[in-house]
């Protein structure tokens, strides 16, 4: 029994130095395709302008948040920031990762080098995170310019956005290890669109009936939205601790699943 256990592959922990080489590889590729990165930034910005200001003008300018009236655009902006962190992470890890896994056979080649599956998972999640951070920085600058930042706590919105990116990157990576064909990605979209629309993105969660509120609170983007909105509007409450815990736990669990699945797929 002991002998059998001893033969099992010891869990190889990721090494930042090794994972960094994969990040470098992705950077080389995107140096040529920088338009892709830029487009990921404009999408949520357009939503902010169209809905934050357009719809905002229609519905009257203020939303009540924790008993405080705030401009509608300032209410929607952090939700758009959280959504863009989610979208960036999912596009990068689910779609691009699947392509590299199944078609480019990138990881088959990489695993013949000193890199292991843990390094691959860490490298790809890090890359998604770097992209997400660029978006978050850009977004926060735009929000500041439009006067949508109501509190100095907003300075923490960038690292918080990175956490959201990490969680969704890990979930996306894990999900794509289960995907068999491109058609399966329709499922990913079927999940992402309601998350974008209903995670208290465009109106407060209190508009939902009680049971639905509980359900929404079980979904991940809601916690991203709540976290960023708390920070940029300065309505800090104990809920953000729960948001942080939720995102960290979900992201770590997904990363473990991704590593284990990759091990099974690639190291047969």
């Amino acid at each position, binding site marked *: 029994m002991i002998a059998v256990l001893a*033969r*099992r*592959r*010891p869990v*190889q922990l990721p090494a930042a*130095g*090794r994972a960094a*080489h*994969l990040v*470098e*590889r992705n950077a*080389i*590729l995107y140096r040529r395709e920088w338009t892709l990165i830029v487009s990921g930034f404009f999408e949520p910005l357009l939503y902010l302008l169209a809905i934050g200001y357009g719809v905002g003008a229609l519905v009257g300018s203020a939303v009540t948040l924790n008993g405080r009236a705030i401009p509608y655009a300032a209410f929607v902006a952090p939700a758009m920031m959280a959504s863009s962190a989610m979208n960036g992470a999912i596009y990068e890890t689910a779609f691009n990762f699947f392509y*590299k896994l199944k*078609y*480019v*056979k*990138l990881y*088959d*080649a*990489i*695993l*013949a*080098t*000193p*890199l*292991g599956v843990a390094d691959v998972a860490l490298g790809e999640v890090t890359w998604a995170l770097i992209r997400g951070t660029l978006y978050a920085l850009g977004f926060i600058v735009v929000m500041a310019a439009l006067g949508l930042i109501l509190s100095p706590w907003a300075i923490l919105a960038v690292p918080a956005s990175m956490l959201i990116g990490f969680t969704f990157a890990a979930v996306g990576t894990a999900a794509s290890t289960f995907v068999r064909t491109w058609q399966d990605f329709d499922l990913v979209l079927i999940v992402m669109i309601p998350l974008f629309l209903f995670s208290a993105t465009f109106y407060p969660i209190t508009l939902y009936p009680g049971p639905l509120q509980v359900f929404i609170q079980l979904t991940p983007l809601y916690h991203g939205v709540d976290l960023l909105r708390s920070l940029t509007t300065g309505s800090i409450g104990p809920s953000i601790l729960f948001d942080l815990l939720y995102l960290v736990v979900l992201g770590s669990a997904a990363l473990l699943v991704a590593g284990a699945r990759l091990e099974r797929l*690639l*190291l*047969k």
Partner: protein
Amino acid sequence: MAASATRADALVHARGLTKRFDKLVAVDAIDFDVQRGEAFGFLGPNGAGKTSTMRMIGCVSSPSGGELRVLGLDPVIDGPRIRARLGVVPQADTLDMELRVDENLLTYARYFDIPRDVARARTQELLEFVQLKDRAKDEVEPLSGGMKRRLTIARALVNEPGLLLLDEPTTGLDPQARHLVWDRLYRLKQQGVTIVLTTHYMDEAEQLCDRLVVMDKAKIVASGSPRSLIDQYSTREVLELRFPIDAAPALDGKLDGIAERVEVLPDRVLLYAHDGEAAASAVHQRGLRPESTLVRRSTLEDVFLRLTGRSLIE
């Protein structure tokens, strides 16, 4: 004495090495040693277990049983350290289709933690080595199959490996490209690189391999130098006869006693004899009139046929 020295020097050492995929046994308790500086070949029909063995040596597939040491280390524990010193050409190309030709070598070098300036210099040298210098800035996808193969070989050399694993390195190459690859491998061997390769080409095995093993149905069925295998498993000469298509059943028993062994293939009959000419006249004396007769020396292909009951290229 000799045995323990062998074990200590072996770059690859396998005893009872086994690989199972669920119930299927792909590699069944094989033993072999690859010595420093030699070129070692795996031959065997499709599905014999060659690639499964190569992947275990390359530390990308863990053994299901037995003992395996590569470069004196245990692949299960020291995978990254071993892989750092290996060069691998997998059976199917795994080039990075999103990057250009030179970027493929540059980034691959970076995975081995090779400093950028060294990586750049080595990329240039290797592109020259495999004659792809003028394609350096091209996309990989449109390269011909042979060019991709050469690029894969170049990529396997970026970390200046001491042990090179080549799984069917020249399958799909035209004769010129194949000779180029043979020449490059020969030069690497001169420089002291140890080579382990699989192949379906007998001339390749004879040209390159100091020693080889023949695998069949997951087991090693013979091992030795190409010459010693021919001496051991075949006669000095072979008489090849071709008959009209429907004549085969009529041969029944008529060739008995002429040769040590008779092998009836779909398209021809092989008679294994010490003296091929004598066998040919014996055939004629019995009144048989083949469409063509050819006397040749035994090759590895005959060994292969004898051991696996199949001709090499199916």
